């Protein structure tokens, strides 16, 4: 069985977006603020996570932040910056819990193969699957890596650069708050220096797009 909902999403696909400025990129934590991931059960205030529920992704012309924890398909910690160093790249953040997110990976691969001009693809699962019944928090990365292998096999993905970047949405320093996304997939096209050229929020009609 595939990890997908079979629903044909007839409603219009979400258009691409190029955001000029990001509130998330400008996050300033109040000194001594209790963080959402603290041990006392605090939830973040709006100003700690970009001012509101929906924030704009880090925008065009900005350096794509990649200085957060990430793991490869062996569960080993890696530096994501190495995956894009010196190469024009498309970094796709997705979430295995969302069917449309998983389905998009194959479409992006096909598009990149035909019109990507040799772009370097990097797929990042910005989530961890449940571990409550399977060994606790220490198993979050191994279990997510296992899921990633399954996705790669079931979706017949060719991309070798698949990573897990555990996200704490309630932490101001969490991946989604750093990069300012609430909907996945969100894809960043960056130049060889890691500067963002384009941002695509949500699934795209890649058939209608020109070359990246």
């Amino acid at each position: 069985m595939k990890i997908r909902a079979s629903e044909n999403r007839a409603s219009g696909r979400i258009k691409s977006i190029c955001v000029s400025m990001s509130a998330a990129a400008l996050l300033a934590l109040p000194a001594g603020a209790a963080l959402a991931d603290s041990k006392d059960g605090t939830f973040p205030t709006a100003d700690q996570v970009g001012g509101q529920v929906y924030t704009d992704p880090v925008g065009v012309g900005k350096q794509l932040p990649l200085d957060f924890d990430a793991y490869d398909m062996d569960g080993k910690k890696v530096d994501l910056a190495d995956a894009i160093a010196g190469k024009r790249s498309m970094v796709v953040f997705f979430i295995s819990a969302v069917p449309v997110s998983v389905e998009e990976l194959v479409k992006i691969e096909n598009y990149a193969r035909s019109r990507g001009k040799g772009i370097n693809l990097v797929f990042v699962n910005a989530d961890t699957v449940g571990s409550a019944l399977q060994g606790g928090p220490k198993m979050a990365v191994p279990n997510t890596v296992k899921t990633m292998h399954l996705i790669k096999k079931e979706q017949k993905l060719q991309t070798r650069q698949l990573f897990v970047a555990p996200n704490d949405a309630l932490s101001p320093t969490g991946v989604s708050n750093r990069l300012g996304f609430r909907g996945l997939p969100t894809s960043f096209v960056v130049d060889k220096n890691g500067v963002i050229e384009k941002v695509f929020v949500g699934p795209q009609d890649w058939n209608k797009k020109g070359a990246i």
Partner: protein
Amino acid sequence: MSINRRQFMKNAIAAGMAGTATMLGSRSAFSAVHDPVGEAQADLFRKFKGNVVLLPSKYGGYVQAMDLSTPETLAWYSYGLHGIDMPIPHHIAAMPSKDPYKGFDFYQTMQPPAAPYVNENSPEWRNRGDFKMFKMRYDGSGKQNSITVVNDIGETTGMSLGVHVSIGVGENANKYVAFADGQKDMVLITDIGDNPKIVKAFRADYDPVARQLNISHVFPDSTTGKFDYVGRKGMKTSHEAMLGEELMPADPTAVFVDAFTWHPTLPFGAILIRRLGCCAIVDTRTWEVVSLLSTAKGSPDNFPLVKQTGFTWTFAVPSVLTPLHEAGFVTSGEYFVACNNVLQNNIAVYRSTDENPNKWKKETFVEGFGTKYLPLHMGNVPDSRFAFFTMWARKPNNGYICKVDTKTWKVVAKWDTGPDPHTCDCTVDGKYMTTVYSGHQAGQSGLVVINIANDKIEARLPCPGGMHDHVVVPESWEGLKYSRSTSV
């Protein structure tokens, strides 16, 4: 072998069981409702006579009907009997019954195990469990009580939804029941028949680029008369959002529709949209979406309708200052109350008496909950003098139940009932508030009964199995107004 009363007495006396006679009240232990006369706890629980409480076990896969006045379980049903591998009974609503000991109907939803607390979105769990809605029946008319499935509503309608269920009241009494689901962002309204007919269905989708919300009627296939949303079909996310997960990346269109609540006096209902901190008000005469309330402090009272194209209403949602969880009406219908949480922890209070919901205004907020306690559920009382709220907290905090004076909208009492508190529901006489806590589905858990007049906890009963919801069977359609209808 049947044992009649005379034979039982003969045997008891022969065996020298002193005091046996006092054990046999007007109804013996062999009838379908136990009479606890002479038992040590009888005096304590007698005051709860007439209250049958339905308790679905999220982790245990069953539902029980409990007579609060004995207390005893009158009957229970394991949803595994319906062929579901790992059923997760989720939310519940009961139809009115003049004598709940004799019989009543109720509705139960369930969801797959990739749900909060069971959040195991890993390969081994993918195919377990299912989205379901059942119409159920309790029969206490004979010597053996029973709970049976009347209708598998998901299969009947072709739309399976797994979160809140609420029954119409007021102008919608004895007509409709509503189901909702935030993994599919859909609401289904059916009639209350044993073979339910589709009345209307809605779907909500957010466009994060245009920052607009589209709420559409969805229609069944004209050839089959059914939808094609059975099981996981139509699912946007593989698990129901936990509290705070409104901030998590998800399907960009996902808004986490959680429930539909009914106005007790006017022909309106509200679609609760967690992630957008909004409630779409629907005219239940036409099923048109007539207003989109924005419940956050600092936001306008409502967001504007941008356009209506056929059966789709498009609203501008330029900013979302906070998610909400539940929202509903007080019993009188005078106020619509919304539990904002995560980014703002307050309770918005709209006056909801105008026949044009676009004129409903936020009059005040219940505040002071800090950053650890999230307003979650609401419990009503018959005279609307108070409203009870569940203040949820994540570990290591317990959370609490609070009582709010609806004249001042101030908290006047609070109780730490136990970790992971969930729904509140009033007894049929309006004297007590029942509430469950599920210990984050793992630890301490139980059912607590609070005296509304003197704020004393009158009783506490063990309740294993992750009780995420419960409901007291109401005695009438008026009684349903302070049950699972106006609020959830």
